[in-house]
């Protein structure tokens, strides 16, 4: 236990002078090398490359042992906290190495056996899962949402490890993310689960992510829904009993489960619905006592959620549509990907927003394209993350239709696609 607490402390950002740098080592799926051996080699690698600027990923190594056993070594999440990216001297930092294997089995389903039918009530992933690899990095937010969430859960786990009396200091592990659709709430939950699993691998052997299908908990039989909820949570309880596992319970669109009580009072909702709300609330109270469980919930319409539930959530984080700066980052990652796949050819270097700032947004040969992109980003403000990630595809489909395109041509198409999005939106709203 003491050692586990030590590990946690290491994982927490400490206020001391030596900052902790997290290094994630993705071990090849066929590799059987011992963790200690890999750690040794990675430390050697990091010693050779002492100074890094922000996040960095190695995928090619001089060391044949690393080439054989390791997919990538990444310095991660240094940019979440430090806004002005200074060079980081690894020799003075605490380095936390996280070595992980991705689990390639897809999701499995948790079934609830009723007498006559089999209801699939939840999807179940073993983390870290290959499906969610890279998801964390693809989510771009302005404020430090990601690091807040990470720190918050770390603190909660530390508190439970230290056995802080929960009657004196109340905390639980319920997170509620809310905001307009398409802003990446569900993705963020999954990515957070993946991230935490990797960070805490030294303490828990693996993570489990259970995604509850809220609609399937409503039974067709009157008065049975509450029982279904109880059955579902019974299954989760079984998973929690395994102290080696860090269990994440994700309830998407939580309002569908908990919106009902007010409506019930108004007489528009059958009384069965109120039982579901009550069952969910009591069950959440039941499982949140365990130290190895984190409950993640998302909602589009916060006003409709039961107050009793909102109260229970410790962290209520609003996730809004991305700002121009975030949009720029999203576009940049999209363009990088298209250049990697050689759909945009020839390859051209684009500047990041920070680099643009440093040269004071002066237009020259180097910055011309990036300035155009930042122009498009400003224009796209108000679009959701989901649409933004779709736009490069739409731009290609609508305005290019060629196997390769120059970056100038692509940016033009992208700009047209953005205009079209706004036009369509206007039409939609005028219809309504």
């Amino acid at each position: 236990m003491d050692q586990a607490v030590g590990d946690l402390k290491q994982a927490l950002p400490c206020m001391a002078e030596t900052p902790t740098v997290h290094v994630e080592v993705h071990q090849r799926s066929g590799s059987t090398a011992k963790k200690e051996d890999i750690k040794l080699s990675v430390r050697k690698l990091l010693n050779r490359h002492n100074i890094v600027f922000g996040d960095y990923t190695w995928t090619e190594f001089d060391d044949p042992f690393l080439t054989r056993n390791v997919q990538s070594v990444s310095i991660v999440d240094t940019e979440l906290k430090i806004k002005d990216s200074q060079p980081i001297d690894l020799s003075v930092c605490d380095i936390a190495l996280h070595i992980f294997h991705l689990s390639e089995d897809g999701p499995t389903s948790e079934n609830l056996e009723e007498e006559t039918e089999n209801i699939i009530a939840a999807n179940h992933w073993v983390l870290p899962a290959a499906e969610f690899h890279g998801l964390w990095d693809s989510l771009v937010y302005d404020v430090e949402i990601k690091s807040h969430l990470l720190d918050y859960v770390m603190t909660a786990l530390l508190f439970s490890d230290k056995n802080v009396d929960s009657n004196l200091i109340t905390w639980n592990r319920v997170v509620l993310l809310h905001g307009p659709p398409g802003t990446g709430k569900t993705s963020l939950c999954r990515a957070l689960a993946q991230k935490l699993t990797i960070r805490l691998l030294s303490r828990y052997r693996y993570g489990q992510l259970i995604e509850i299908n809220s609609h399937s908990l409503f039974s067709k039989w009157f008065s049975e829904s509450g029982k279904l909820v109880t059955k579902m949570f019974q299954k989760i309880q079984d998973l929690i009993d395994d102290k080696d596992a860090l269990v994440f319970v994700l309830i998407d669109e939580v309002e569908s489960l908990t919106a009902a009580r007010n409506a019930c009072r108004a007489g528009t909702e059958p009384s069965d619905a109120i039982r579901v709300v009550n069952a969910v609330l009591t069950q959440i109270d039941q499982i949140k006592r365990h130290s190895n469980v984190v409950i993640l919930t998302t909602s589009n319409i916060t006003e409709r959620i039961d107050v009793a539930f909102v109260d229970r959530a410790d962290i209520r984080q609003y996730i809004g549509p991305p700002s121009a700066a975030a949009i720029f980052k999203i576009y940049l990652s999209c363009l990088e990907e298209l250049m990697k796949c050689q759909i945009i050819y020839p390859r051209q270097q684009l500047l990041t927003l920070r680099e643009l700032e440093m040269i004071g947004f002066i237009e020259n040969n180097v910055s011309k394209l990036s300035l155009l992109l930042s122009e498009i980003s400003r224009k796209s403000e108000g679009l959701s993350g989901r649409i933004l990630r779709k736009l490069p595809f739409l731009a290609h489909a609508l305005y290019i239709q060629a196997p390769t395109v120059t970056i100038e041509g692509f940016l033009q198409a992208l700009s047209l696609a953005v205009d079209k999005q706004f036009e369509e939106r206007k039409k939609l709203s005028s219809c309504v």
Partner: protein
Amino acid sequence: MAAPEPEVVFPAAVSDLEWYEESEETHAPQIELLETTSAQEPPNPSESFCPRDCLVPVVFPGPVSQEGCCRFTCELLKHVMYQRQQLPLPYEQLKHFYCKPPSQVEDLVKKKPWTTAETNSRKCQQTLAELESVLSHLEGLFARTLVPRVLILLGGSVLNPKEFYELDLSRLAPNSMDQSLSTAACLRRIFRAIFMADAFSELQAPPLMGTIVMAQGHRDCGEDWFRPRLNYRVPIRGHKLTVTLSCGRPSIPVTAWEDYVWFQAPVTLKGFHE
């Protein structure tokens, strides 16, 4: 299901016969086990039986070869899949029925939409192909490394299976130079013990589930079909049946197994119903 040819008569326990037949052709140095040796019989199996966790100890009067261990694993896998209704017939029978010349099947497919019999036959062929590939790769694994433990996981996920079946081979002495027992005789002994323990009769009929095979092997055995699962730990919940084999000789000390890690077959065997 395809109509069985009338001239083929299937005895109830066809796989039993298989073992007898094959016993003659297996390895040259053999000590035929006398069926009457009751000295090494498991100490009253009915006592060690409990409904959820079932332990079946089997003691052999001599060493067993690696090939023998592989056979035990394969036969247990076939047996579990049939007993737990993932296969409608025992493996050998299915193979007999459905291994038709492929051209015949293809012609039918082209001419008219699939009848249920044809879809069944396709499903069955796929299941058989998957099972065969696992069986053949198991042989490869056993040839590469000592395998102290094998798990057959049914339903759920690798970490939380609904049922799991464990074959503990770690207490068998390593394959020494001296003669090993006849594989067929050992198989008979194992399955008699399993039948005596009555492990399958009181389970309720399961739905179709995925079957995953896991085996422990040496870290450096160079296996490339099975995927290593370094973090894996044997699950604690789910219905469990453990078959432990031992041979009355000092076994390999536990510390020697430290470098043995879990490997998972990369395919999930999907059963089928008719």
